[in-house]
């Protein structure tokens, strides 16, 4: 349920509470009303024209690091 995709914030329009997002060359204006703070360069989850949440880059890196670790575990076993 709830299709949402991570897209990069290209620019912000604070007056209208909107952001222009980019997803591999596709640009779309989305509402940022649901976010406390958002900055250009952030990745946000886009759902029905709204940015739902920011992607936490540090946590994403941790998950990827864990994948690497698990792959190493698999290679040993």
């Amino acid at each position, binding site marked *: *349920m709830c299709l949402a995709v*991570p897209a990069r914030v290209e620019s912000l329009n604070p007056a209208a509470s909107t952001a222009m997002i980019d997803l591999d060359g596709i640009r779309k204006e989305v509402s940022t009303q*649901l976010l406390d703070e958002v900055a250009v360069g952030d990745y946000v*989850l886009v759902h029905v024209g*709204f940015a739902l949440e920011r992607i936490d880059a540090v946590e994403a890196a941790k998950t990827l690091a864990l994948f690497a670790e698990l792959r190493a575990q698999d*290679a040993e076993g």
Partner: protein
Amino acid sequence: MKYVDEFRNGDTASALARLIRAEVKPGRNYRLMEFCGGHTHAIFRFGVNDLMPENVRFIHGPGCPVCVLPAGRIESAIRLAEEERVILCTYADLMRVPAGSRDSLHKAKARGADIRMIYSATDVLAIAQANPERQVVFFAIGFETTTPPTAAVLKIAKAMQLNNFTVFCNHVQTPPAMMHILSAGEAGIDGILGPSHVSAIIGSRAYADCCDKYRVPLVIAGFEPVDVIQSVLMLVRQINAGEAEVENQYTRAVSQTGNQKAQALMQEVFEQRPMFEWRGLGSLPESAVQIRSEYAAFDAEKRFNMKEIATADIKGCICPAVLRGVNNPDECKLFGTACTPEDPKGACMVSSEGACAAYYSYGRYRETTGTT
């Protein structure tokens, strides 16, 4: 695509799948309910099942907003469009869902009703502004992910005093449905893959009661296939250790407390609905929201004095049992014969997230290759 491609890496998936195979205990079954249709979709789209050992089974849950909407609510919306002559706006997903008596929004549109498919809730505001002489109703559906956008537009409509705009609210809540399925106990669930984007809004703590009360482990899982497989590994480990914790695999988007701004917005505009009927699960107390009295002027149920319509589901359709995880779609007598994606009898055959639609393709493929 950043944050997508890395989580669709086939080699990582195979490696994690091998770990799962090494860790599952041969003597037991692992019945894992993916609550969300989004997970169902990912599992079929990427062929995650092919990588799982025999004894890990996915049980499909009720987390598909169009599948759980009772036919009567669709019937009500059709009446708004046809009798009150409103412009009815809704997400495209709902168009082909069967209402009662072989009807659907799609068919009503073909008969001449003014039904418009929208991409974003904000589009409805634009339609209302462009048609000041018409009543415009947003037929809003969805779980906690889709609820905050509806709240946002209600707030804007109120500020703009947009008096030709109302919302027919059908927003439902995830934890009560989950509790209900676990309390019924009929699906025999060993672990739950928790929702991704719903959890981004409501936070991982929202499931603590479920796990405690029913002693079932839950892992909040991202929607990409590697996310799903890693979450299965986490569940298998919990099950093997006899644990029942809420764990969060999808940490890049889900925090413990969720998106508090969105929660506050929902609080401001919506209140708990005492009772709501779910297709398949029946009437569940405190499982949905309704528009607060401060926003009553924007509530379609009030403005048009809408009455509940009870419609029987199609005879023979076992969607309710499928949604509760009790039956597999291929156990339905209509499956693949009277009910196909071209001519769906139940909601589960319509949405690409519906378990029946997914089984329809996948099941036939298994027949052709002889795999089980």
